[in-house]
Each structure stands twice: as structure tokens, then as C-alpha cells.
């Protein structure tokens, strides 16, 4: 597909789950069809179904400014700029006139075409908007032409639109958008539009400045943490130290005695202290005495859980994939490779801790939130307060990062604020604040995972059998989403990155095991790919060495019929100087992964000295279809490296007697500036449909680094975070 025809359907690089119709009335989220394995399935709902009324998505003012009504949540990924680019391209608006605001919560108008409801995630924003937003821009342009034709009484075919100016050469008439906007936007919406061919693009593919740069460099950008309503109270919630514990009783006398503490209420998640300001609320919470019922709480350590994971993996798992006959292949193997990988629980730790503001009024409820799954949050609040979803107005604001945490299908913190408001029982605006400690200790982690790989090579060094076991706590088993998102016991998000590998592996069996715990888990930037890619890319590297082959050549042989994948592998290798000798103590490692229809290869240069790992350079090659804004793509890869590096080197959530041992940025330390490697990003020129870039930079980083550590030291680190001590 060249992406230029109006009647063209989007291929869905789906987050496999199409979140449809959060059915609050029924009391449970109704989630729609679960579409496995992205590239193999295209959801009917994912097609851009024009015509779209431009009035829904753009407002053109008399001062010529064009305001995109952005249906997606901006958490730093640059979506406001990306969507505005698509509209401006077809509208022929000058970039300097583009503005944006966030769309109100009206799913019928602003749904994610892949999810079927309003929501952002799964690297779907550009993918689902790629045709739609260009159609919107094109339709608006045609409406300007129609309006000018009517006003000037000239044939529409003689009217040109360029750079925000509508003109008719023969009569010498010209009008800027602002002059014609009122008339234009009342014109009938064209039933069909023709999109520009790539050769005519002026903005797509250019480095356009981000639309949110100025507000975010002057302190003017508003996050929900910054919302200040008259009389607003701040609520902090004391939650149990142990997951699964509940409030038995509490004593709030000392808390209430603090000047400025206004109320203390019990909610399902714990006990909330409300005060006139944040500091007083925090002091009130400290003064609170809560007696917890820990009888049913989770008390296992990570080691305990991993021992159980290991025992589980000794049995036979659920068949997530069966291709050829893995066991027969392994039986014939000349060499057999076996390895085990473990992956810790991880917190998302977005820079802005969770928070939101609620205000109950006669008309319903207003929520101010960095809200990623608006439809789900809306339904959750409605359910708690016994209202209808349409009574919940959401004011979406910038999110100070998310990495998955703000898009919780369980709507944990949104429900929490609704419960606080309900328990307080009077009309006062409330801001719910999570501290960093609350965030790190608060669960909804990337699950603990174990991978066990057994793979065999034939005499020629070719893979002839691969059995892969994955033990993972499902994101959905045991939740209301299980019935719609888990099929025959298999949660796609547990096994992705493995079952959908682009490598040609003929005899391939993947078994899935659902571990259980009371630790709440959630998707974490790149979801299952965050571990699946690491196991695959480490194993492939080890197999290449076992076969006596170059790791890049070994990969290319497995991608012989996948030209797009192979091109990315080759580009990264070439730009990184793959094959060049490095000084002692330094190593170069390769990894390649494809997810969300975006392909990323990374070459890591690593120095190891006295068991300290220093990543010097990452060279990345990317194919995400049309590069709508190459600078934002580059930034997302740089950012993914910064985000994933600390997970690779040190981050993990552990428990002592059930209590989370990490608290803040000292013992759960993100990457610091001094650790940041140089990052080079090379983007494949492509006219294929634009996909996305928010997540795909994460999966290849850790295996590229691990493979480089092996190259530098001859020591193989498999489990994450890398135990640098073992290099000593």
C-alpha cells in the first residue's frame, strides 16, 4: 500500500487487544475482539472510515491559526506534533500556524480507530491516524476551495491552496484561511478525498519543531498535578505495605489533630487523608495508625516466586505456538543450547507521579487527568459514583510520562479518586496525589518472567529445533478482562516477542505458563517484548557463536525472505562498523526486534572495567514506514535508550516479607545523564504506511548490551538486570 488512496484501510500494528466499549452500565468492562499477532490479523474496525468532518478535528480561526483537536494523549511521544503534521500536510497550512488542544471525551468522534474507544497506547497513535488525519486535512482544504469558488464565483478547479492561502490566479483573488474559515467550515464535507502522493509532501518527513516545546520550556505546560481549583483539597492514601492486605481498623485522631487536615476517609485501597495542602496531607498520613489484615496478603519473595516458576516450567505448558516438530528437531541436533532468563518486576516510575483532580457538581463530574485510556477511566468513575459515563467530563492534560502506567485497564488511581470523592460526600474539588514512594511501591508492575530456551543446531549450524517456555504472570488472568483477552489460557502479552519472531525457525514450539500472585501487574513500555526480545536476541547471539558464525550474518540467514527486516539489520551493522576490531575491555553487541510493525536494530558498544558496565554508544536503525517526523523518531529512540538502560543495568522491584524494598529514585534509580551513551539513529526511507515509535526502541537495548558484554569479556549475562558483579 502506498498510503495515498482515500479508500484505503489501515493495517493494524495492533496491541492485539482492541479495547472496545467500556461498558460501565453492565458493571464490567466489555473489551472487544482480541486480535493476536499484529501482522497476521487486521481488525475491521481499524480502517479509516471517512469522510471525517474536519470541524471535529480542526478549528481555523480568523487569525489564520489552525488548531488540531488532538484525539491522543501526549505523554512526551510527540503525538500532538505528529497528528498536526498530517493535517497540515493535506490542508496546506503553514507549520507556524498550527496549534493543538486535547479532544474532549467523546469516543464516537475521537476514538482510536484500532481500539474502538478513546485511548492511546500500543504504539497505535500514528498508525491509526495516518490515513484519518490526512483525510481530515484534505477534506478541510477542499472545503476552502468550495467556499472560495462560491464567494468568488469561479470554478473550483481553478483554485489553488498553498501555505495557508487560497488563490485564484486568473482573477488575482487571494484569501488567507482566516478570511474564509467561517464559510469554509460550513461547506458540505466531501464524500471522498484524494491524498497527496509522497512526492508532493512538504511537511511529512521534515524536521518540524514540536508544538509543545515552548510551553514545556517556560513552565507554562499544565499537567494534572498543576491543576488548582478554588477550595481544592489534596488527598493522599495510605495503602498497605503488603499486596492483598486490607484495612482492619484505623485511628485518625493524631492525623485529624494536625492543623489543615480536613478529613480522613476509608476507601477500598486504604485510608485517605485530605488536607488543605499537599504537605499537610502527607503529615496527616504519617500520623495515621492503620491496623492491616494481612491474612490473605502476598508474602513470597521474588526468589520464592522464581523457584515456583522453575517448577512450573518443568511441566508441560499451554501451546502458544507449534510450528513443525521442535522435539524431533532437537532429537536430531548436532549441538544443543539451553539457557534460562529471568526478568524482574519493574515499576514504570513516570516522572510525574500519578495524580488527578475531581470535582463533583450538579451537572455531573469533572476530572482533570493525564488520562491515557479516557473511555475506560470515564466508565470507572461512573461505576464508582453510580452515574452514567456521559455524566463524566474529562479534561485531558499533558502526562508527565507514562510508559504504560497511566493506561491501566483496571483504572486503579482513577477509581481511587472517585472512591475518595464518594467517601468525602460533599462537593469539594479533590486532588489525589501519589508520592514517588507510592508510585514505586504501588504495584502494577511489569510482571516477573522466566524464559527457558532449548534450541538445537544441525551439523551445518542451522537451527533445527527450538522449544521455548515462558512463565509469566498474565496481565489479564484473574481480572475482569480475562474472558475477552485470554484464549485457551494464553495471554498474548506474555508470549509476544517470541511467538511472532520474524526469524525463520522451522521447528518451533512455544509453551506458556501462567504464574499467579497478588502483585498487580501491567504493561510496561513494549509489554511482552520487553522480555521476549531479550530472550530471543540473546539466544540467537549464543546460537550464532555455537554455530561458529558471525551474529549478524546468522540473523540475516534467518531473515532471507524478510527484506524489510534484513534491511534494518544491515543498516545498523553497516553504520556501526560491525566487524571492526575493538580495544581490550570493549565489546560490540547486536540485537534486532520487530514489534508494532516497527523494526529496530541496535548495535551497542560497551566498556567493561572492574565489573562496571559502561555503555558508550548505541547505533540504531529503524523502519517505521513513512517517517512522519524524523527528529521525533530519533528522540524516541534516544529516549527509549535512556529509559531502558537503567532497567537493563539495575532496576528491579523485590520484596522482603511481602514489603516492596524499593522506595524512591535512590534505590530505584533511573538512568542519569552521566550514564547516557551516545545514540545514533538511522531511519530507513520508506513509503510504507507509517507505524509508530513510542515503544519499539526499548526491546533491543538490553540484548544488544548483553551481547556486547559477552564480546568484551567472554562472560554471558542472561537475566535482567545484569549482575555486573558476575563480571568481576
Amino acid at each position, binding site marked *: 500500500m502506498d498510503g495515498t488512496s482515500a479508500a484505503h484501510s489501515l493495517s493494524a500494528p495492533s496491541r492485539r487487544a482492541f479495547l472496545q466499549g467500556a461498558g460501565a452500565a453492565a458493571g464490567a468492562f466489555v473489551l472487544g475482539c482480541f486480535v493476536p499477532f499484529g501482522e497476521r490479523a487486521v481488525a475491521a474496525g481499524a480502517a479509516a472510515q471517512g469522510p471525517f468532518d474536519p470541524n471535529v478535528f480542526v478549528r481555523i480561526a480568523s487569525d489564520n491559526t489552525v488548531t488540531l483537536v488532538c484525539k491522543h494523549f501526549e505523554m512526551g511521544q510527540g503525538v500532538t506534533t505528529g497528528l498536526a503534521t498530517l493535517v497540515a500536510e493535506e490542508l496546506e497550512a503553514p507549520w507556524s500556524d498550527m496549534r493543538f488542544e486535547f479532544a474532549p471525551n467523546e469516543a464516537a468522534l475521537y476514538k482510536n480507530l484500532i481500539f474502538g474507544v478513546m485511548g492511546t497506547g500500543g504504539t497505535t497513535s500514528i498508525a491509526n491516524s495516518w490515513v484519518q488525519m490526512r483525510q481530515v486535512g484534505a477534506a478541510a482544504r477542499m472545503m476552502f476551495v468550495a467556499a472560495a469558488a462560491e464567494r468568488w464565483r469561479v470554478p473550483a478547479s481553478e483554485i489553488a491552496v498553498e501555505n495557508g492561502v487560497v488563490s485564484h490566479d486568473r482573477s488575482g483573488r487571494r484569501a488567507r484561511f482566516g478570511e474564509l474559515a467561517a464559510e469554509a467550515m460550513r461547506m458540505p464535507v466531501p464524500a471522498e478525498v484524494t491524498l497527496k502522493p509522497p512526492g508532493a509532501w512538504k511537511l511529512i518527513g521534515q524536521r518540524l519543531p514540536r508544538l509543545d516545546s515552548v510551553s514545556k*520550556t517556560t513552565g507554562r505546560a499544565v499537567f494534572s498535578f498543576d491543576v488548582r481549583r478554588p477550595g481544592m483539597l489534596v488527598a493522599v492514601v495510605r495503602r498497605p505495605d503488603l499486596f492483598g492486605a486490607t484495612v482492619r481498623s484505623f485511628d485518625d485522631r493524631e492525623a485529624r489533630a494536625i492543623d489543615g487536615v480536613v478529613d480522613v476517609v476509608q476507601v477500598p485501597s486504604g485510608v485517605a487523608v485530605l488536607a488543605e495542602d499537599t504537605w499537610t496531607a502527607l503529615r496527616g498520613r504519617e500520623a495515621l495508625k492503620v491496623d492491616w489484615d494481612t491474612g490473605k496478603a502476598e508474602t513470597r519473595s521474588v526468589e520464592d516466586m522464581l523457584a515456583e516458576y522453575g517448577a512450573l516450567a518443568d511441566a508441560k505448558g499451554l501451546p502458544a505456538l507449534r510450528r513443525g516438530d521442535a522435539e524431533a528437531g532437537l532429537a536430531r541436533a548436532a549441538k544443543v543450547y539451553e539457557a534460562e532468563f529471568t526478568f524482574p518486576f519493574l515499576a514504570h516510575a513516570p*516522572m*510525574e507521579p500519578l495524580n488527578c483532580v475531581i470535582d463533583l457538581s450538579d451537572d455531573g463530574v469533572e476530572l482533570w487527568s493525564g488520562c491515557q485510556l479516557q473511555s475506560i477511566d470515564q466508565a470507572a468513575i461512573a461505576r464508582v459514583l453510580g452515574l452514567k459515563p456521559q455524566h463524566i467530563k474529562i479534561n485531558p492534560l499533558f502526562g508527565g510520562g507514562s510508559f504504560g502506567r497511566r493506561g491501566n485497564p483496571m483504572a486503579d488511581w482513577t477509581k481511587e479518586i472517585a472512591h475518595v470523592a464518594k467517601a468525602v460526600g460533599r462537593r469539594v474539588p479533590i486532588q489525589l496525589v501519589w508520592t514517588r514512594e507510592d508510585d514505586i511501591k504501588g504495584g502494577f508492575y511489569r510482571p516477573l518472567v522466566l524464559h527457558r530456551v532449548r534450541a538445537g543446531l544441525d551439523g551445518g549450524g542451522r537451527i533445527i529445533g527450538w522449544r521455548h517456555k515462558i512463565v509469566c504472570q498474565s496481565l489479564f488472568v484473574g481480572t475482569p478482562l480475562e474472558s475477552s483477552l485470554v484464549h485457551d489460557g494464553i495471554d498474548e502479552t506474555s508470549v509476544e516477542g517470541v511467538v511472532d519472531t520474524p526469524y525463520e525457525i522451522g521447528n518451533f514450539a512455544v509453551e506458556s505458563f501462567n504464574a499467579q500472585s497478588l502483585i498487580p501487574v501491567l504493561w510496561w513500555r513494549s509489554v511482552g517484548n520487553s522480555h521476549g526480545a531479550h530472550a530471543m536476541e540473546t539466544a540467537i547471539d549464543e546460537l550464532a557463536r555455537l554455530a561458529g558464525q558471525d551474529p549478524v550474518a546468522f540473523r540475516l540467514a534467518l531473515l532471507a525472505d524478510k527484506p524489510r527486516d534484513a534491511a534494518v539489520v544491515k543498516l545498523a551493522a553497516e553504520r556501526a562498523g560491525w566487524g571492526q576490531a575493538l580495544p581490550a575491555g570493549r565489546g560490540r553487541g547486536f540485537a534486532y526486534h520487530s514489534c508494532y510493525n516497527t523494526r529496530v536494530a541496535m548495535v551497542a558498544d560497551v566498556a567493561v572495567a572492574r565489573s562496571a558496565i559502561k555503555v558508550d554508544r548505541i547505533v540504531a536503525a529503524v523502519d517505521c514506514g513513512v517517517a512522519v517526523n524524523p527528529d521525533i523518531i530519533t528522540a524516541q529512540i534516544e529516549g527509549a535508550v*535512556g*529509559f531502558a538502560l537503567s532497567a537493563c543495568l539495575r532496576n528491579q522491584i523485590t520484596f522482603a516479607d511481602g514489603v516492596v524494598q524499593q522506595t524512591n*529514585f535512590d534505590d530505584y534509580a533511573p538512568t542519569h545523564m552521566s550514564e547516557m551513551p551516545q545514540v545514533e539513529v538511522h531511519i530507513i526511507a520508506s513509503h510504507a504506511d507509517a507505524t509508530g515509535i513510542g515503544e519499539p526502541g526499548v526491546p533491543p537495548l538490553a540484548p544488544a548490551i548483553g551481547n556486547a558484554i559477552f564480546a568484551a569479556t567472554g562472560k554471558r549475562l542472561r537475566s535482567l538486570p545484569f549482575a555486573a558483579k558476575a563480571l568481576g
Partner: protein
Amino acid sequence: MIRLNVNGTAHDLDVSPEMPLLWVLRDRLQLTSAKYGCGRALCGACTVHIDGEAARSCSVMAGDAVHTEITTIEAVAGKVAEAVKTAWQSLDVVQCGYCQSGQIMSAITLLNANKTPSDADIDAAMDGNICRCGTYLRIRQAIHMAAKAIA
């Protein structure tokens, strides 16, 4: 009652002298550019200037900030501040933006003290400012760009 001079204006405030400056700014003065990220001087999101020097407002008690000049990014001005903001914008440093007020305030202090910082100087001065979105490479580049602009 304590008196704080913030962005050139004196405010008489009925707050405990122990309240962290961050919460006085955000909750009492509605100046929300300084952000809460950790509350323990571990991230730099709350960085403001106290007498022209970068300070972690989450870890400064309001009572200790009387008789000082407190400046937030809303009011920070001058050649260095302008150069830094301009460089940040022209390199599109920001992603989510939540850390960036603090990053910019730290960078201004660095450049006020050192007009030609090396990468190592930048790392040393900025290492306490966490960016979870990983915008560090651009921050470093932007500081170099601002340094050139003010040279």
C-alpha cells in the same frame, strides 16, 4: 507568618516554616512550574533559583528561604536564561516536559558559573536532574548551544 520574596514580589504567608518551599510555591502561591518528582532531593524536578543558585525546593524549608530571592522558571530572565530556553526549543529537547523546568533552572546556574562547560562539566552539574524520558543527549547539546550563544 513568614515573608518570602518570589519572582520579585514579597508574599506574607501563613505557613509553617517547616513546609518545604516546593509546596509553598505550588499550593500557596499557585506557581506550579517547579514540579514534585521525589521529594527527597533525588531528581531535580523541583529546582528553582535561590539567590541565583539552583536549589531543590522540595528539600528547602520555607523558613530557611526568608530573606532570599526565590526565582522560578516563570520569571527567570537574562541573557543566559534566554539562551538556554532558546537552545532547548531549537533542539526540541522536551518529551513529556515534566522534568524540564528543573533541567533548565539547573542549566542556567551551570552557565552562569561556567561559560564554556565541557561534557564532563555538564554531566557533573546536571547529574542530579533525572529525565525519565531520557532527553539527556539533547540537554547536553542544548547547553553547548546556549554556551555558544552567550559567548
